[in-house]
């Protein structure tokens, strides 16, 4: 058994990047304020000192430009890690990710790979308003050619980041500002974690909660409340959205017969819609209730603190949704 250490989410990410940069010269990091400023959210603290400005590059505010530079460099065999200060700003680089990163392998008939990691915090922070609170993972998860990763715990952050850097395909790595300080046990020898393996992080029989990233913690909180009322729900933490571990989800639903997906982004055409489709196709005969989603309210994020809290899925809303399923008449 290896030893465990308590690491913060941001430290786990930093260790993964640092270890991969140590073992592979082709890996480099770029983004706004990642170097001299030590990272807008201090994820990359100390990395400029360790690797120098040749491998840790501060970029101007030019998301489309530096995403594109990363993609071209990746086609030539380098392994860039591109930080978006937040995923909101990736919208400016969406064309590069959609039309270049995800497509170059197929367009070239398999001649060129694009081994690049795009990473940064996603979704809401606290009262940062409409243009800084968008959950972007849904947009990326629809794109074939990309992989999308969204860990909830530091150990997974480390293992999945290592896997992302080693992957020969473009990977979208979803973090959260409100997760960066969360602590968790990380084994000393934490190695890469294979994509497409969800984890049951709480056992239960009354319903299955499917979540990822920060919402896994919200689901767990809701599960703890429900347990006090005698309702034991199972929580499945997806860890990767694409590939999606439908087997683990389906196995859980076959046991609980009810499914609620919790995510921060909007519901229309979102990750929850995808999961609902798969569950109804693969576990139709086991379902005893409709699949429900707890998502951001179907509006942009308001600034006002109370309205914002009402828009973002909270444990209460998850709990009430589960109860609606469990105590459903007929």
């Amino acid at each position, binding site marked *: 058994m290896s030893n465990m250490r308590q690491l913060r989410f941001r430290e786990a990410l930093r260790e993964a990047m640092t270890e991969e940069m140590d073992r592979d010269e082709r890996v480099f990091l770029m983004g*706004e*304020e990642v170097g*001299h*400023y030590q990272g*807008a959210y201090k994820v990359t603290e100390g990395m400029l000192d360790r690797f120098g400005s040749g491998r840790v590059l*501060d970029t*101007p*505010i*030019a*998301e*489309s*430009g530096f995403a594109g530079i990363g993609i071209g460099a990746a086609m030539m065999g380098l392994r860039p890690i591109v930080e978006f200060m937040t995923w*909101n*700003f990736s*919208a*400016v680089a969406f064309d590069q990710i959609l039309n270049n990163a995800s497509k170059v392998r197929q367009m070239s008939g398999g001649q060129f790979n694009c081994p690049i990691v795009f990473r940064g915090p996603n979704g809401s*922070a*606290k*009262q*940062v*308003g*409409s*243009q*800084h609170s968008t959950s972007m993972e849904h947009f990326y998860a629809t794109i074939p050619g990309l992989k999308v990763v969204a860990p909830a715990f530091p150990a997974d952050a480390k293992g999945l980041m290592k896997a992302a850097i080693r992957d020969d395909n473009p990977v979208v790595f979803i973090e959260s500002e409100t997760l960066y300080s969360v602590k968790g046990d990380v084994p000393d020898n934490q190695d890469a974690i294979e994509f497409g393996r969800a984890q049951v992080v709480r056992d239960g029989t009354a319903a299955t909660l499917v979540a990822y990233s920060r919402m896994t913690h919200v689901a767990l909180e809701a599960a703890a409340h429900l347990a006090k009322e005698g309702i034991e729900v199972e929580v499945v933490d997806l860890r990767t959205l694409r590939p999606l571990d439908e087997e683990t989800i389906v196995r859980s639903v076959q046991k609980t017969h009810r499914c609620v997906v919790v995510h921060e982004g909007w519901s229309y055409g979102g990750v929850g819609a995808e999961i609902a489709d798969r569950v109804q196709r693969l576990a139709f005969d086991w379902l005893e209730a409709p699949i429900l989603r707890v998502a951001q*309210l*179907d*509006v*942009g994020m*308001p*600034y*006002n*603190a*109370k*309205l914002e809290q*009402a*828009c973002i899925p909270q444990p209460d809303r998850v709990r009430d949704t589960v109860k609606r399923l469990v105590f459903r008449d007929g």
Partner: protein
Amino acid sequence: MTKESSPKASPHAHSDRFIEATTERSFDASHLAHLYRQMFLIRRVEEESARAYASGKIGGFLHLYIGQEAAGVGALAALRPEDNVVTTYRDHGIAIAKGMTTRALLAELWGKKTGCSQGLGGSMHLFDKAHNMLGGYGIVGGHIPLACGVAFAAKYQQQDRVTLCFFGEGAVSIGGFHEGLSLASLWKLPIVFICENNEYAMGTPLSRTLSVEDVSQKAEAYGIARDRLVVDDVLEVEARVGVAVERARKEQLPTLIELRTYRFRGHSMSDPAKYRTQAELDDHKQRDPLTQARAKLLASKYTEDQLLAIEKSVEEEVADAVKFADDSPEPDLSILAPTTYDGPFAY
């Protein structure tokens, strides 16, 4: 009459060719007093905002305009009320200079229903249609093409309205800036692009953002007029922006103006600004345009008592606005659907 200054004459050691006024302009002291009041009001509003942020009345990001007041106030003094303004998230000062009431501004920062955007936009997104304040925007450079569209609409509708578009030097690297300038030049749009170059984009100094030090040079490639000055004297800003505004109004031609300025606080409340020295900051505070305007007024017909009276009226205005914001109600959930769609909600 203007001349190009030599590098040495420039007040900033590392800047080269700013264009300085050669002759003292004659000025109307009461007009300067009016601008001084606006600048002082902005300063006090920002200080009050910082305090409110510390006590939790304001949340999220808060980007203060302290140090840059003379840029926005001088530029907007060159406009008519019907002219339009579009800016970034660092928008409090611009909103006030465009006529937004202190009450509507603070109530918005407090997230209240009486705020300019009913508490939905917050600090970074100040809108006031009645005063042709068309918003603060949060995605760097994203508002520049939008501002060109505002100018396009004025031209299309044959309205005699000019658009002013503000952004930081950090925005000059992003596509929106270049596409905006390119289109404005091609379609001869009545717009003035104002780069408020405060020397830092968050923690990144100018030298690591741009390959050239002279931001106004960017105008050359697009074939548009340019100007470049250090913000010391609010009246000089007004006069120089005024030339560009007239060019837009009379000839339907865009201009790029670089205003070299400085922010006294961090990028936002979470930035301790460790990337610059205290000496550098002190140097800039010595040359605070607000103090310069006050001194100029004292050297004219204004007495100390008169200036104190102006400052007192500002204090009263701010205190009233704080109380108004404190006492105002918050918006409730029913506001979200009608502000998302006009008409039935498109589920």
